[in-house]
């Protein structure tokens, strides 16, 4: 099989993995390549998703038969496998032309988890040692592989990840026979442990080797199983706190195979995915707790409003906020104010009291913020503090309820939080 044909098959199989980040590491030194702490996007595909890594599977052969997966054993599709030399060579040729930041290597299970992990490690080791490649490498860890092999992944890769795939054990058992909560959480926990251990060690001995310096991430599929948004957001919160994950990715379910256990969707739930990312951002950068966003009586994220606006409307007693003396954390909770504009407010008010008309210049979206702030005691929102009236006004300024249009604001959200990611949280 020609290299081009292999690449096509294995890139097509890898594209559903949402992770594209190349951030969080600042590798460098002799040889070729370096990693950029805030990551670099090199292009965007026709679906508007960023390309920063050569994202491929080593092979799409697989011993498993997971219902949601394109590479399931029972799927009659052409199969291919790349050799470690091909993977390393291709990464290097793409990298030196500046097409990519590095490699994202995942794989179906060929032979056994151990065998698969060994081959992946050989490819990445070759890249690091023979090509002396210092660019970014994201490596998937194969659940069920031997602990010693899993441990090695972090020595060669900048980021490691084990995909959770489905939010509950029950769903896993239903759709992914051969996987359980434990097959995912055990290696994840092990990696979290190793990362923390190496960090401590490097604090006292600078020369000790880095271990997955960009940390660990995971991904789960949204909309293939009946879990609520609350269950998902609570799970993410726990993963950030207990497993120290850098990122949880959400992937709107795209029905790529036919299976009676899967829901019949006409299109992927992109707006829901978008709302989950917004909630996730609120957890990581805005100081929110999952319980503030969703509770048992309201387990679903509102599709009409972003979760911060919903929270504000439900907590009108906490508003309006006076921008001239509220603390940063409080300002950050105002709809229409993001990380960048909140920082600007805190900085600009040192030079003099802020007026309402100044806020727009600081990047605040006044169409939304106007109902929630005062400046020097001045308020230009709705006098009668009625949630319903504000809700109606906010809806007037919505571009449209259409999911596609709304997705644009995710790019803004990402851009807005970029300064925060300079320190490597992304």
């Amino acid at each position: 099989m020609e290299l081009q044909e292999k690449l096509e098959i294995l890139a097509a199989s890898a594209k559903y993995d949402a992770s594209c980040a190349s951030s969080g590491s600042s590798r460098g030194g002799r040889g070729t390549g370096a990693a950029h702490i805030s990551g670099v996007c090199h292009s965007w595909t026709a679906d508007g998703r960023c390309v920063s890594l050569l994202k491929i599977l080593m092979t799409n052969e697989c011993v498993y038969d997971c219902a949601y997966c394109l590479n399931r054993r029972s799927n009659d599709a052409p199969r291919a496998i790349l050799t470690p030399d091909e993977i390393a060579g291709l990464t290097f040729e793409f990298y030196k032309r500046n097409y990519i930041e590095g490699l994202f290597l995942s794989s179906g299970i060929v032979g056994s988890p151990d065998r698969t992990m060994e081959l992946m490690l050989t490819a990445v080791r070759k890249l690091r040692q023979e090509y002396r490649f210092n660019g970014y490498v994201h490596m998937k860890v194969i659940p069920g592989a031997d602990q010693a092999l899993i441990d090695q992944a972090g020595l060669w890769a900048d980021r490691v990840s084990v995909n959770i795939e489905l939010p509950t054990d029950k769903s896993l058992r239903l759709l992914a026979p051969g996987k359980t909560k434990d097959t995912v959480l055990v290696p994840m926990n092990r990696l979290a442990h190793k990362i923390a251990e190496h960090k401590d060690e490097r604090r006292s001995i600078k020369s000790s080797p880095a271990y997955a310096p960009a940390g660990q991430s995971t991904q789960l599929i949204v909309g293939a199983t009946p879990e609520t948004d609350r269950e998902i957001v609570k799970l993410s919160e726990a993963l950030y706190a207990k497993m120290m994950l850098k990122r949880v990715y959400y992937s709107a379910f795209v029905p790529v195979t036919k299976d009676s256990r899967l829901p019949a969707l006409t299109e992927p739930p992109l707006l829901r995915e978008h709302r989950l990312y917004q909630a996730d951002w609120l957890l990581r950068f805005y100081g929110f707790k999952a319980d503030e966003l969703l509770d048992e009586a309201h387990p679903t994220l509102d599709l009409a409003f972003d979760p911060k606006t919903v929270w504000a409307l439900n907590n009108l007693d906490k508003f309006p906020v006076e921008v001239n003396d509220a603390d940063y954390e409080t300002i950050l909770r105002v709809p229409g104010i993001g990380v960048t504009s909140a920082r600007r407010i805190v900085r600009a008010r040192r030079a003099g009291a802020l007026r309402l008309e100044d806020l727009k210049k600081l990047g605040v979206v006044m169409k939304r913020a106007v109902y929630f702030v005062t400046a020097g005691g001045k308020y230009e929102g709705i006098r009668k503090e009625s949630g319903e009236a504000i809700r109606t006004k906010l809806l007037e300024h919505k571009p449209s309820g259409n999911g596609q249009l709304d997705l644009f604001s995710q790019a803004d959200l990402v851009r807005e939080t970029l300064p925060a990611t300079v320190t490597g949280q992304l």
Partner: protein
Amino acid sequence: MRTYLYNGSFESFLTALAMALKDGEDSALAMEGQAREDLFTEFVNAGSDPAAATAMRELFERRGSAESWQHARFAFLSETEDRDAALLAYARLIKEKGAAADNMLADDRVKRVHGLSASVGGEAHMFKGFVRFSELADKTLYAKIEPDHNILPLLTGHFRARLGAFNWIIHDVKRGRAALYFRGRLIFAPLTQQKALEFAGGEAAVQGLWRHFFKTAAIKERTNPELQRRNVPLKYRRHLTEFE
């Protein structure tokens, strides 16, 4: 009313800026050949004085801060029409208020220079991703760029750290200038392409693989050309291998 003329270099610009600053409120500065003649303006050639330029730098750095100096440098590279006036107003403010000026984010003078600086920094960051090298027959990596701002000086450190083992050229074809990195040495020089480039043997094949990968990586069910256009504006696509 005096307008101080500089020759286009940063050193000459800083010399002119220092002179305009000393002169008083109604002075201005402009690049040679771009100043509009009128009856009331006296034009003064500022020349290029390293000592005056250093003094100007110190005013930004010490009276202001490292941040003020960075904004001034980046805003200069923006090459927008209002750059000279914006930087003069900003320099006056730094002189008057010191480092506190950079906190006045709602002030139009500060906002404009910070904005220009952010737009230059943003474009430089984008081009760390958008530069596309092709391998020439002699193994040199060659890339063409056409950025809005003069960001070439902000790219070289990045590529030096990554591709230090190669010889490379980044060619700003809009400005006819290039950064040439050869055996570990970097120079900036005027460059116009005289003859057709001779590519390495495997170059077309690697480019083909990349285009195939790029096409395959898109998810059909999520097609969203509007979002793609926001992220990769059409004006940047001309030199991107995957859009050729």
